[in-house]
């Protein structure tokens, strides 16, 4: 059966959401891995979290899993907020200790 790209694009389904989610995840991962600034890394983490959220919502919408996905997404948002607060506090302490937030320079755990 023929399925044109336009058709596929005009009829959003689960796969579309998953692709967006995967892109977000990849961007977040890229940020986490490549950024040297701790703040940027944190932002990457947020992206990953939100990509997970999209997955939860999408699976909740397009499968028979009812509202569980929504609930978890809400949890994730709350936890992400708390996490951001904690993470920023840690970053502040790291800065106080090392006078930098450049991750390359914070390598005291080097083997």
């Amino acid at each position, binding site marked *: 059966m023929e399925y044109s790209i336009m058709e596929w694009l005009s009829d959003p389904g689960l796969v579309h959401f998953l692709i967006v989610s995967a892109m977000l995840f990849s961007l977040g*991962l890229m940020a*986490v*891995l*490549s950024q040297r600034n701790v703040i940027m*890394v944190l932002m990457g983490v947020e992206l990953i979290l939100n990509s997970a959220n999209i997955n939860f919502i999408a699976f909740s919408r397009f499968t028979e899993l009812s509202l569980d996905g929504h609930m978890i997404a809400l949890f994730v948002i709350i936890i992400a907020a708390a996490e951001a607060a904690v993470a920023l506090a840690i970053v502040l302490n790291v800065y106080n200790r090392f006078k930098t937030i450049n*991750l*390359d320079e*914070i*390598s*005291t*755990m*080097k*083997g």
Partner: protein
Amino acid sequence: MFIQLPLLILLLPLLGFILLIFFGKKLPRNGDWLASGLILLAFVFSLFLLVAKITSHSAEVFSSSFVWVVVGSLNIEFGMMIDNLSVIMLVVVTLVSTLVHLFSIGYMKDDVRYSRYYAYLGLFSFSMLGIVITNNLLLMYVFWELVGISSYLLIGHWYEKKSASNAASKAFIVNRIGDFGMFIGIMILFVSFSTFAFESIFESIAAGQLPFESTGWLTAAGILIFCGAVGKSAQFPLHVWLPDAMEGPTPVSALIHAATMVAAGVYLVARIFPMLTADALLIIAYIGAITALIAATIAITQFDIKKVLAYSTISQLGYMIMALGVGAYTAGFMHLVTHAAFKAGLFLGAGSVIYAMHKVLHARNDHHTDAQDIRNMGGLKSKMPYTYWTFLIFTLAISGIPLTSGFLSKDEILAGTLAFSTLNGHWLLPLIGFVVAGLTAFYMFRLLILTFHGKPSDQSTIAGIKESPLVMTIPLMVLAALSLFFFYSYNPFGATSGWFFAAVERPLSIVPELLQPASAALFYEAVSSVHTTAMILSIIIAVGGVVMALSVYQWKKISAEKMAEKAGILYRGASNKWYCDEIYDRTFVAGTFLLTRVMRWFDENIVDGIVNGAAVVTREFSRISKWTDDNVVDGLVNATANSADRAGSLLSKVQSGKVQTYLVYVIFSFLVLFILFIRI
């Protein structure tokens, strides 16, 4: 009474010893009165016992014993045997001991170990009395060693002096040699008869039993037991200890080394007399004769007053042994008793002189002049009258001048040797006997004259000499009285009619008939036939010796130096004690040292070699072991550690410390796992 009283006599000195050794220093006067009192009491009892025994129970033998040690089937008995021999010895020992105790109060005054000295005297008296009253050989051996140790202790009384402690050791060791033989003899008898008691042994032999079924062994047993007497009584060749024993205090020399202990050997021979075969007796007689001659010749050449007396003692002991050997049993034992009195007197007299000399020298702070050298004396006669007159009586007695006790006993001995030679032709024995009699008279008068007569070499010393106190002169007078004939026999020219000969009879020989010496009846018949000859000869010879001494030393008709020169090698030999000590030094002492050197070489080279060899082998093994340990075991361990280390440092490079790198690993690993899982 004849059992309890001797036991009491035996225990009194022991009590004194125990009290003095523990409490001596706390007692008033250090306890000398206690020791003297106890021994005096023992003497009184002994005297009472003697009188009671001789007058009413002369022929009886009292004995009693109880089982002392039980080992399996072996019973060792502690027993006593009281016959005339023992009661006479009891009196002799306690009497001399009492007088020596008294004398020592003066002589040993202010001594550093005063109470100890008296304690040892008590120990000695106890041991000596034990020898006298025991009824078996083992107990006798025990007491025998006890007198040995008390003799050792008393010779070494002034042990700070090297010569005194050496002399004590020498006396002890030389005695041990004799005692060793004695012990073997006792063991031969014990193995054969399973008993130590004299009576049982004699009974078995009389019943025809012999040690190992052989007469040779019987003779050997007799001679071996006699070895003990050779040691104790200072007979040739073990006589060398007695002159050295003079290092002890002079009263000790009087008691132990003149009157009693050295006579114990004679007493022992008298005790075992019945079991001695004719061969054994002949050897004993010759040993006695040789001893008498050698010691008498040495005595002539000595200048130390105590050494002269010591050699004279050896010589007289040789006489006694010789008398027993030829069968003149009673005469020999009587000489023991008479000799005990006059020789103890001579020693105490010498002690009195030494005491006086020492006091003068000490007051002058003179430590170089020898207080015992008779060349430093002379002219003491007027200064020390009591000492002089008693000394004169003792000298007459030992020289065998009539009217003295010494004449009685010596005359009987000489008659005995003469009779022996008529019976079986050993003419050397009476010859030596008469020669020694002459020599004895000569050297004793030489000593008397040089000490008391003539002009002193150093007038100033003699001028200060004073007579010793009464406590020292009274014992001398008692002993001087006892050196006269009437205590022993009413007839001054024949001892046989006296109580002594009646009381002490020669016991019957119990050895098989073929080995017996000439019977007592035969012997006494021969004695009576030669007695007058012997008596006249002995008087002539004794007087001849005295006249000779007087003409050499008193009237100076003959020069002593010229005599010595003429005698040449004989004089040199005698003045050097016939080189006995030197010979022993060269042979036995040097031999012992050689043996120790050989042993040392053996120890250092063979034994140490084996030990060292074992050590070397062990060391090499340990070296190999160490190498293995260092290289193989440690190598393995280190290799493990190194590989871990290397792996660690290799892996630690992974740990960059950068969080993001870790995350990369996590994600890649996850991806790898993911792909793997999907594939599966």
